[in-house]
């Protein structure tokens, strides 16, 4: 019914005026996406934005099959052309494309920072393109948690706390509540203790935390993020991505995230829309896009990214922090766990062959049981360990990881423990180029990197 491709394996491409989805004609349908069973929070309907004089003529030209370059001859710059999208409540929706593909423009159409040339933007079913200035202000305050910007866009003359409180301040929230909520949001992004500092005293990563906290303090449903992590150096960037995922699990916003980086898109996005030349060429989950790219452009983008079939367990395993030896007593094992902050460990013998898995809880039980042995870990209380051969392809590991709640032991040909795989590492490996034999994963496509290098 709607434009969502979550349940459609074959994604639609360039919508033409004659095959427009019927969603805009039956508004009752707009609020729910029957195919995905999720509520549509934010939707674009035939949305276009043309900059420059006489935008209508450029649109006409495009409707007749003209290209972006043709429109440029009229002096018009086409930012977004005929985009229809449904963004679901609580999902992280990534807009991805190269610079100039229109992704940032599309993002700014969603809260009308840019005035659409044609089409509608529906927020909870309400067409905000028709609102007066005052009504629009109300929608921006109530439905949107502001926006997070690439260059942070925090105010240099305000302290961290006053920056975070900005959104609440313009809404007229009272000083006490404002302070309370701003403190909460500051703590949420890990900036406790920095409230009284000025932005210039903070690192880039911390400044972006301020930007994020400012958005979270408002606590509205929709969060718009424009290349939010692109200006940060790679390590900080990865850290912020992880934290966003963690935060999202807690706050459950509808996030629209713009990026030019495929890795970031795969890591963060529940669904991804790929943009090219002002149009959306494909929408889908990472899986759908990887398995069934809509056209050559998308294919070039994701070339070699299907790492799950290339990587093996050995590529993504991490060093084992600590193991319990068979001859360890329960107290020794428990101390080892505490020192490394673990809740469970693999049990190995002197040859490092895996015999089982033991948790802090079962060790505690053993210590309380007067009949249990004191000089070794009770084999009765051990759980079977989940192990995988180090040459096992990643796909197999993913299958195991989704079932197992504990870390997976990685063993070599002779059965010796070589490393562990934790769930997060799989996702990270899928989204990270470079660590593998297949080093050129994204660089090979030659497109995503170009822009990244300039950052």
């Amino acid at each position, binding site marked *: 019914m709607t434009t969502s491709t979550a349940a459609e394996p074959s994604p639609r491409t360039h919508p033409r005026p004659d095959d427009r989805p019927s969603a805009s004609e039956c508004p009752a349908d707009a609020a729910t996406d029957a195919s995905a069973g999720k509520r549509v929070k934010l939707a674009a309907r035939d949305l276009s934005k043309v900059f420059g004089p006489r935008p209508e003529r450029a649109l006409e030209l495009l409707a007749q099959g003209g290209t972006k370059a043709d429109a440029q001859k009229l002096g018009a710059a086409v930012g977004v052309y005929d985009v229809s999208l449904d963004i679901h409540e609580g999902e992280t929706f990534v807009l991805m494309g190269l610079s100039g593909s229109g992704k940032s423009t599309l993002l700014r159409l969603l809260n009308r920072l840019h005035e659409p040339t044609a089409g509608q933007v529906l927020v909870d079913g309400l067409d905000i393109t028709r609102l007066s200035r005052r009504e629009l202000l109300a929608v921006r305050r109530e439905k949107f948690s502001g926006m997070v910007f690439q260059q942070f866009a925090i*105010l*240099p003359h305000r302290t961290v706390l006053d920056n975070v409180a900005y*959104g609440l301040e313009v809404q007229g929230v009272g000083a006490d509540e404002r302070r309370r909520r701003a403190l909460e949001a500051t703590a949420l992004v890990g900036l406790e203790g920095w409230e009284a500092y000025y932005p210039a005293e903070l690192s880039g990563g911390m400044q972006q935390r301020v930007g994020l906290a400012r958005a979270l303090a*408002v606590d509205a449903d929709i969060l718009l993020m424009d290349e939010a992590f692109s200006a940060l150096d790679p390590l900080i960037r990865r850290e912020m991505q992880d934290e966003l995922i963690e935060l999202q699990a807690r706050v459950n916003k509808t996030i629209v995230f713009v990026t030019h980086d495929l890795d970031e898109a795969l890591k963060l996005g529940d669904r991804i829309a790929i943009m090219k030349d002002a149009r959306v060429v494909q929408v889908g989950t990472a899986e759908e896009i990887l398995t069934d790219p809509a056209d050559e452009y998308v294919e070039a983008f994701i070339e070699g990214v299907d790492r799950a079939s290339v990587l093996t367990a050995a590529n993504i395993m991490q060093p084992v922090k600590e193991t319990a030896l068979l001859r360890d007593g329960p107290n020794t094992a428990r101390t080892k766990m505490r020192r490394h902050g673990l809740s469970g460990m693999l049990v190995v013998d002197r040859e490092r062959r895996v015999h089982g898995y033991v948790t802090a809880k079962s060790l505690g039980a053993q210590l309380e049981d007067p009949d249990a042995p004191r000089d070794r870990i009770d084999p009765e209380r051990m759980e079977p360990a989940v192990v995988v051969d180090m040459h096992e392809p990643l796909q197999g590991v993913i299958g195991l990881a989704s079932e197992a709640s504990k870390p997976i032991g990685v063993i070599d040909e002779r059965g010796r423990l070589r490393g562990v795989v934790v769930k997060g590492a799989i996702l990270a490996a899928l989204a990270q180029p470079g660590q593998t034999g297949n080093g050129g994963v994204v660089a090979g496509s030659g497109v995503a990197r170009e822009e990244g290098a300039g950052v």
Partner: protein
Amino acid sequence: MFDVRVPIRDWIETAVRYLQRQFATVFDGFADVVDAIIGALLSGFQAVPPLLLMGAIVLLVLWLAGWRLALFSAIGLLLIDNIGLWTPFLNTLALVVAAQLLIVLVGLPLGILAASSDTAERIMRPVLDFMQTMPAFVYLIPAVMFFGIGLVPGVVATFVFALPPLVRLVNLGIRQVPTDLIEAADAFGSTRWQKLVKVQFPVAMPTVLAGLNQSIMLNLSMVVIASMIGARGLGTEVLRGIQRINVGQGFEAGLAVVILAIILDRLTASLGKRQQRRARE
């Protein structure tokens, strides 16, 4: 070359006379207001014993700009009193402060208007250029015609001459505010007023203060010129020095102007630095 001379002279003459006749009440009303402001300032200054007023000024300087300038102010002000120029100094101070009040009152909104509308900026720019480059003496003539002789026409001539830099730099400062800050303000649902007061103006503040500083300096440069149309003060002393070829007298009064200029200049400059320091450190 031509038989016909372009009668600019007559046009201006006619226009000024027309305005004088038609808007006499407006000009009189304006003159009364300015006169009242200057009068209030002057009687305020004169009501306070010189030492007390000096102390107040020095304390203000100490608070805003540090002990070095405060020390300089103390010595400078005592010297002015010592050479018997305290009363002319107060006259000049009243003239400068009144003119600057008017400049800020008019200049800020005009600068904001210019920043928010390209059309307004296009209209204002040549007018501002004209105001600033026309030799300052020329303003004295219509000022006298509209407002007579005294401090009021002095304030008006000073106002016209010293207004442009403030308008210009307020405009520039606001236009230079980074786009993403404006977008952030909009995205969080700020009204235009909130955006101006909470984002644009504070971010533009260093540039605005530079404009304020420039206009104060131009303002001071008019002091002597304005004395030619009867604006009493230090300028009058300089003028007397010229008329009597009394180099000592002229120099003393000139020195007093310099002392005032240095205090005002450093004071406004330090305001800008304070602002930046807060944001940077």
